[in-house]
């Protein structure tokens, strides 16, 4: 056994040495080496040309993406595909922390779901989405969305604790969910009375996209729609912030992100709500 073992080890070492010598001989052979260098050169050249071509194509698409008016971008499937591909890593880096990796928002942060067709500001056109990304909401710049904020009715003493609870019941009624009739009636009186909610949310409670006042009848909530969250919104108010990305991201990046959000919320089959639809 011992002898066989030694013999086997000797064979492997021998084979290895022979192979090594062969390779060294091939490499040191001038003719063969020139061929290898030439082949490598051709491969590198092809790679460089392919990279340059891809880069030029990207440049051209970026230029097209920005040169077109927003609505025209939305109508061009090739541009939308390009923008979505460009935007995904940007979204992951800059937006997902608040709006979620799946774009469905975060009620804790008051970050809206970007996949549905409900919009706080504007009507969901690519132009409106881009404006929001450019200048944000309450971002401390003059072009930002800062027309109104949800007042802190309870904290400021406008409504008592029980009155806030009554308004919550009325909002539950408005959004088509089970509610307490008597409290909702009181809440309705407050809605049109001392709280004057209709000033922003409208007498029909369908909201106002100029003010960023949500439609209370759709049952879609950025800050949570359960009674406890509604109570917190009415009692403590909301002053949600979205940063202005102009200056941080390039115009092309902002256009790409706006197109991505537009594509996700306006899928071809009309079924908003699935980010996968934009891929």
């Amino acid at each position, binding site marked *: 056994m011992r002898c066989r073992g030694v013999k086997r080890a000797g064979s492997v070492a021998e084979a290895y040495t022979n192979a090594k010598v062969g390779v060294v001989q091939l490499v040191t052979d001038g003719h063969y080496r020139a061929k290898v260098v030439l082949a490598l050169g051709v491969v590198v050249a092809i790679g460089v040309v392919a990279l340059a071509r891809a880069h030029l194509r990207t440049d051209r698409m*970026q*230029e*097209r*993406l*920005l*040169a077109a*008016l*927003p*609505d025209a971008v939305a109508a061009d499937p090739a541009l939308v595909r390009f923008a979505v591909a460009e935007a995904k890593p940007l979204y992951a880096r800059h937006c997902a922390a608040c709006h979620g990796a799946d774009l469905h928002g975060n009620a804790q942060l008051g970050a809206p779901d970007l996949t549905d067709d409900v919009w706080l500001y504007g009507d969901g056109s690519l*132009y409106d989405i*881009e*404006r929001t990304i*450019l200048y944000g909401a*309450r*971002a*401390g*710049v*003059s*072009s930002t969305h800062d027309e109104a904020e949800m007042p*802190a009715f309870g*904290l*400021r*003493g*406008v409504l008592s604790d029980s009155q806030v609870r009554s308004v919550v019941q009325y909002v539950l009624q408005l959004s088509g969910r089970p509610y307490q009739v008597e409290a909702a009636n009181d809440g309705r009186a407050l809605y049109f009375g001392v709280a004057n909610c209709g000033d922003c949310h409208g007498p029909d409670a369908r909201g106002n996209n100029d003010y960023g006042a949500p439609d209370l009848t759709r049952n879609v909530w950025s800050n949570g729609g359960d009674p406890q969250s509604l109570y*917190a919104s009415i009692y*403590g*108010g*909301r*002053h*949600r*912030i979205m940063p202005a990305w102009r200056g941080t991201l390039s*115009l*092309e990046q902002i*256009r790409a992100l706006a197109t991505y959000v537009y594509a996700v919320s306006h899928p071809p089959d009309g079924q908003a709500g699935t980010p996968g639809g934009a891929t």
Partner: protein
Amino acid sequence: MNLRHPLLLPVAAIIVGLALAGVGLFRAAPLPLAAVPPGYVALVNQKGLLMSDFIAQTQVETSRSFAESTPAERSKVLREMIDEELLVQRALVLDLPETTNEVRGSLVSAVNAQVAAPILAYVPSDAELRAYYEKYRQNYTGPGSMNLHDLVLHIGGFENADQSPTQALADATEAVYQLRSGASLTYVMEHFGFVNSGRMDDTEQLDFAVKLHLGDKLYKTAAQMRDGEVSDPIPDTDGMHILVMVRHEFPKVVDFSAVRDRVYLDFRAAASSRVTQENLNLLRSQAQVLLAPGQSE
């Protein structure tokens, strides 16, 4: 060509490196843009005007969608935007932030607003508001009011033309003594030659109005007086004054529930101030500020 020469590759690398460095060093500066880049509607002295801003401005001015605006309307808006940009650029050339207080004020406000914007998203709890109220409860007082007589003994006036300040002070001191002893106001005024100063009109007035009418010096004394109290003589520009307090309603701290709206606003204002101050501290930590000899801040 002997590719096996040991110095060949290093020499080639050095030559390529030097050539690249030479190109970098002696290449002309980038040419100014000759065409408007995509995403912009115009270039004004190489400064771009955003297409998005142009669309927004057009919609604001025409109250219609951009697609519905006419070429003439768009041209007008664009002309206005270019004019504005030119003037802004001119302002920078003229260094208006250096010389014009309004511009400086606007810049300061804009920076502070930007810094404070995120902090306003914070919703305080009731407990935090109450703690803030307790800490600054002296700020939440209702206005006080008072009704008082302000008598003055003119010095050098037609009735006391020959009276010296020292004599006036002695008379006033005696008048105060008699008033505090129960003498009537009418008697003291007639006996010593005091007249009503005319600053108060014998009605109850809020503290700020009293301060306005009496002036800071007399108000300082009046603010401490209780009902029926007579002040010591107070010399002022027009003579020797005596204040007689009829009724004084001192300012009262208002209950939290009555001022919670103010407390809420103050809480937020304080948070903004705090964060703008922190921003200033940061800027100072990164800045080089040199003071001239003998100066301090």
